[in-house]
């Protein structure tokens, strides 16, 4: 096995509720690019699903995003986009939010491996 490191570094994208965004931005992943476009979207109570969809699609086509973090409850609303994304990069990672704990049954990635593991493994 050989390892090679690429020169350019990539960003993490983020689609989350206010608390998730605050926490991770504090962790130092938020960035506005040259056109003041953000790599994160704060999803509030009144955010339309269409807006989330557009933003997520944009993130998926951006060349400088390597990983996209998305709260699982938001992911459930845009499940069709997530299932349609089959490229390994950017990696779509579903994370729990403060109100909604992590549910392995809904995770798109683990659905692909259905049958290879049981729920007992998650406990």
């Amino acid at each position, binding site marked *: 096995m*050989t390892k090679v490191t690429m020169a350019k570094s990539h960003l993490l994208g983020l689609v989350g509720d206010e608390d998730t965004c605050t926490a*991770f931005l504090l*962790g130092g992943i938020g960035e506005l690019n040259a056109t003041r476009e953000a790599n994160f979207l704060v999803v509030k109570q009144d955010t339309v699903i269409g807006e989330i969809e557009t933003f997520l699609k944009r993130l998926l086509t951006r060349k400088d995003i390597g990983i996209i973090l998305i709260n699982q409850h938001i992911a459930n609303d845009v499940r069709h986009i997530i299932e349609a994304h089959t490229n390994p990069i950017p990696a779509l990672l579903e994370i729990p939010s403060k109100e909604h704990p992590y549910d392995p049954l809904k995770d798109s990635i683990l659905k692909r491996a259905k049958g290879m593991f049981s729920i007992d493994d998650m406990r």
Partner: protein
Amino acid sequence: RVREAVVSTQSTGDKINVFPSRMILSVMKTRYKGAQKGHSLLKKKSDALTLKFRATLKKIIENKTVMGDVMKAVYFSLAEAAYAAGDISQTVIQNADKAQNKIKFTKDNVAGVQLTNFTMHSEGSDVYQLTGLGKGGQTVTRCKETAQKAIKLLIELASLQTTFITLDEAIKITNRRVNGIEYVIIPRFENTIAYIVEELDERDREEFYRLKKVQDKKKVIRAKQKKFLEEYNAKQEAVEAASEAAPRNLLETEHDPDIMF
């Protein structure tokens, strides 16, 4: 790729349409061996990939379980910071400018499949160095650290995920090829070789039969010739015996054997 004419019949199945000859037979045998070698190599590749796949899946499940706990810690420390420093969310969100923590790609190779992984890469300065200096600075710093730990873990998790998806695709393709060779290509060669051997054997049998027939014919001819010769000799002897009884006539040309010294 050259597409050869493949013929299929009900009884014999698929086979390559060739004129049966010994040269073609040895060519087909070599290719058959090649197909078998290719099949076993691909199977090994598939096994190696599947092994790595299962290992990756196990790690993903482990990590996702840890992630749940880590995220809880993040939200807890965020709540603590909010309690001590007030609502910092607006300040944080509006001051996002340059990301300090980014990711770098690393390429890896497993059993011939290229995998891409992520590693955390920090550059630049902390935009939020001054946040919370007013009140509750410690809780804000703690929240920052917890979040960074969480980000590190999430980057690892994303790496595993990417590996998982890439391997999944590679395994599907490889297995398709293995099955193709096992159930289509190899039977085709086996049928072709069986057919050629059959035809060559039949030709040999025909040749043998032909030779036998010719020999028999020759025997008959020889027997006829022998009979004819015997009759002729018998006639000649009868003539000579008759001519010996009569006196010699010198005027008739006789065959005079040469006198050799």
